[in-house]
């Protein structure tokens, strides 16, 4: 194939993004361990747990005169909640890493002029499944603190559209593969 600048840039971007995900995982793990060892370090650190994407409902709150912003802090987060959040974020990073890897495989096969191969059909199906896992992982948020807690739930629409697109692409590549085979096997 002649040099395709856009494909080359996309491949480099995929590699760079994969590197970023690995770095983010290392940083997240460091933070996860650090929070547990030095909770006091986060005493004055303000973290806004509320996000606009989620519809939060407060599950419980101990009757206290303490203000909300003093209850919902990193320092007061329960260990099991910390674990859930850590595994949730780790899962997200893993899914994003694997999704990028699959996409990179597709790009590289296009560069090698082996576009309509069965591997690419599998890659797009895998991407679809990975986005589904991503949607599941981003649909909830559980945060429990020493004196209260809240749980969030949202239906992520964008990933659902992306799942559909990935599976449509898999079908397009499947048809392409069938056409290519027919052409290759015409003597």
């Amino acid at each position, binding site marked *: 194939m002649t040099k395709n600048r856009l494909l080359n840039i996309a491949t480099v971007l995929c590699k760079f993004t994969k590197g970023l995900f690995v770095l983010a995982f290392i940083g997240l793990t460091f933070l996860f361990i650090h929070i547990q060892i030095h909770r006091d370090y986060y005493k004055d650190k303000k973290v806004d747990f509320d996000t606009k994407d989620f519809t939060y409902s407060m599950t419980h709150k101990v009757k206290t005169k303490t203000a909300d912003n003093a209850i919902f802090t990193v320092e007061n987060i329960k260990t099991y909640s910390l674990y859930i959040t850590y595994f949730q974020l780790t899962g997200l990073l893993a899914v994003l890493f694997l999704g990028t890897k699959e996409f990179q495989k597709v790009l590289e096969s296009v560069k090698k002029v082996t576009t309509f191969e069965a591997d690419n059909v599998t890659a797009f199906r895998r991407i679809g499944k990975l986005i589904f896992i991503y949607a599941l992982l981003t649909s909830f948020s559980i945060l429990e603190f020493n004196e209260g807690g809240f749980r969030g739930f949202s239906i992520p629409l964008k990933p659902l559209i992306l799942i559909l697109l990935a599976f449509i692409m898999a079908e397009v590549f499947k048809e392409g593969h069938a056409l290519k085979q027919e052409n290759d096997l015409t*003597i």
Partner: protein
Amino acid sequence: MSIIVNLDAVLVKRNMKSKDLAEIIGITTANLSILKSGKAKAVRFSTLEAICKALDCQPADILEYVED
């Protein structure tokens, strides 16, 4: 597949090797092998014509329909 390729039998009758036929008709031995093994999805008229010319036979001598 219900279309059987009897190219091997015709080649034996004509005492010709696959390699030689491939060379005469201008296709690769790999493609001829695909044709002989019945893996081919389609045969071009030009290829069929070249085979018939090289082997001095009719298309029916090479291709046979068998009900599944």
